[in-house]
């Protein structure tokens, strides 16, 4: 058990957890940020995706100690003052979610994609999004929404 200070969504938050605790469970169980989801715990599904210094990472694979030095953004931190990002807007417009459970991870990965590639092709999308599973299989609309957001 030890203290860790994390920089999350523009705020410093301090937690007292064992050093090997993955960032995912720090967010969910200790900071009340439950938008980031658990799906597999092995880096296979992408449900737990957050940004570390702008890059999409799997928070289930990131021990809290390794996250302490960076800037973390979670799904809760994307919108500013209630204003959604164009990608979040596109997600609503295309009615992407079914159950919705994977969608935070999808949006975090797609946000990182658009930050590095503002006009991705279908195959760019496929390559970037292949680490994110959707059990409800909303892939058709994920592609459409990313294209729409890229045009915004």
């Amino acid at each position, binding site marked *: *058990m030890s203290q860790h200070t994390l920089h999350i969504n523009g705020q410093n938050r301090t937690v007292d*957890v*064992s050093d090997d*605790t*993955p960032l995912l*469970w720090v967010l*969910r*169980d*200790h900071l*009340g*940020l*439950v*938008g*980031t*989801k*658990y*799906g*597999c*715990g*092995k880096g*296979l*599904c992408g*449900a737990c995706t957050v940004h570390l210094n702008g890059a999409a990472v799997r928070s289930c694979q990131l021990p809290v100690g390794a996250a302490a030095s960076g800037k973390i953004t979670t*799904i*809760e931190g*994307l*919108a500013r003052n209630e204003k*959604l990002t164009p990608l*979040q807007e596109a*997600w*609503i417009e295309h*009615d*992407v*979610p*079914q*159950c*919705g*459970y*994977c*969608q*935070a991870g999808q*949006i975090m990965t797609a946000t990182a994609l658009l930050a590095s590639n503002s006009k991705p092709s279908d195959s760019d*999308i*496929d*390559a970037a*999004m*292949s*680490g*994110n*599973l*959707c*059990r*409800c*299989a*909303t*892939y*058709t*609309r*994920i*592609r459409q929404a990313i294209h729409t957001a890229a045009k915004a």
Partner: protein
Amino acid sequence: MNLSPTDTRHPAAIARRDFVKASAIAGGGLLLSALFPSTKAAAATKGSSIFAPNFYIKIASDGLVTIISKNPEIGQGIKTSLPMIIAEELEVPWQNVTVEQAGLVLGLKGWQGAGGSGATPGHYMDFRKVGAVGRTLLEQAAAQKWGVPVAQCQADQGYVKHSASQKKLAYKDLVDIAAQLEVPDPDSVTLKDPKTFKLLGRRITGVDNRAIVTGQPLFGIDQQREGLLHACFVRCPVFGGKPRSANLDTIKRMSGIVDAFIVEGTDDAFGLRPGVAIVARDTWTTFKAQQSLQVLWQDDNASQHNSLLYQEQASQLAREPGQELRSDGDVEGALASAEQVLEATYEYPFLSHTNLEPQNTTALYQDGVMQIWSPTQNAINGHGLVKELFQLEDDKVKIDITRIGGGFGRRLMSDFICEAAAIAHKLEGTPVKVTWTREQDMQHDYYRAAGWHHFKGAVDAQGKISAWSDHFVTFGLDSTEKTGRGAGISSDEFPIRFVENARLSQTILSTNVPMGWWRAPGSCAIAFATQGFIDELAHQAQRDPLQFRLELLGPDRQVAPAGKRGPDYDSGRMKNVLQLAAEKASWGKKLPKGRGQGIAFHFSHRGYVAVVAEVTVAPNGSLSVDKLVAGVDVGPIVNLSGAENQVQGSLIDALSAAWQQEVTIEGGRVRQTNFDDNPMLRIAQSPQIEVHFDQSDNPPTGLGEPAFPPAAPAIANAIYAATGKRIRSMPFSKTDLTWT
């Protein structure tokens, strides 16, 4: 919103017309409460004196409307589509509507669950009526205020208008008068002409979408309470095993652990299973503790169960006669006189549901009340089990239904609710959340049953099926008499009733593997077998697979089920969707070797769906499913966006299951553990999808399931067209598809 019973009059006093009630809201506004579905509710009140409305509409004094959604949302879009039906008839602008999820309401016979694609057909007319009752009351209120006949008053998007005088009043200025009026009989109010619908049939985005894309706590696993502890519940990896002892003292000494104990459980495969509970300050600590947990399990002889053994038994039994479920005409005679008899065995494996949100439930036992927050498709089932386990009265078990991260049938079972309740009972006064690991989720499911179909069939000189015989080998849970849940077959299964000489027989193997309903139970696998063998017969007859199917369906007519057990089969509706899919997919276009089209159809859950698949198979055998085109008739569409989403998802889900997924049993336990050894389709493998609706003039029916079954056989049939290789077993990835 509080959903406590509000009326305890004598049952005889509650007439049919009283199933919708109006009352004033303190501080202004109109509350409509209702018991739905009304027919079942009517029956329910016979034995009960409680008027327990499961359904509310609230029109507040600011004109904003709140509609209760009583059925669980599992991703099928019900929380959006059912309120749309009310809003349409109530004539309120959709942007003024807020939807709230109801918890479990007792005292009802109508099922407050998610399954069987039943919610749309079960509520469509009732919900229109309740919306129309509200609209009528508001029109009557305006008529009274203006002193004009009600017939001259017209509700229109949150206002009532009087065209002659050009007057109009907002609902918010009418609700207090409306609350005092006598409620009209729901059966007598005028419903809107569907041609004038403003909302139904449009694309409406899901009501929770904003909360989803901003990561708000919606799901069962997101539940947070003051002082919440976290728990895991470890069961014997071998089905049915019980813990005899465990290194509990070691576990309890680990940092962050609060408690660890053995839960005796019950023998009910669908209730509280025996296991070891570990309680900690966070989920991660419970996961870690599992690595150090050592349990001495007692698993009797269950560990002999094995998929390879099942395979051997089934292959042999399939060729022998089984128990006859149905026999029409003279199958043996027709086979004997056929020029050539085709014989083939189709098979498919056990499947896990693999909801992306693993099983979880939060519970608090305090002051004799068990409060539960759960992602359940079937809250009343969990209620009954928990009540019984702890000898609690009906009203001492309360269940809040959260949004659900995928249902697919898994959460019709309540084992995980029982676990949370058992731990909460022990920790009286402290809320606790049980969260399963992915590995536990995959290894302790209620699986889609594996099955085998041994077919014999023949075509006559006219190219028609002259004989059809299907010997179905399936599983029973520790039984050779009774099929497991979702493991049965209907004796009407297509093409029975459409072929003169047809026979269906069955053999049940006993297994210790718990089985459960899996999206489109039965159909999800059986369609692969039947539509595959029909394709083989079409090729045998040297007929176009589409034409062959159209002729098999025969003239347009309603074909009744045996013993009036289900809906009629409308062959005309099926032919229409077949032709629709074929036309949109340019069926029959010339394709080079290695590319091919396949077609299939299936009727389930009252829905008619046909799919054309287009695939490319490289000479090295690598498969790419390029496009799936669906023709769908489920009557008029409620929410076009939601409906299309269900079909898109069903088709890709079906491909995912057919191509890559299986659960195998070794030593009485499941071998697969996570998405690495039981993969799920990823975006790069997902085909282009086209969905075409034939919105026939029939009552609207559900769409969570019926688009799933025809996709896999369409793909397998396309692979045959591309390569000449017939796939008769799932997952497809096990068949060598190389060609030269």
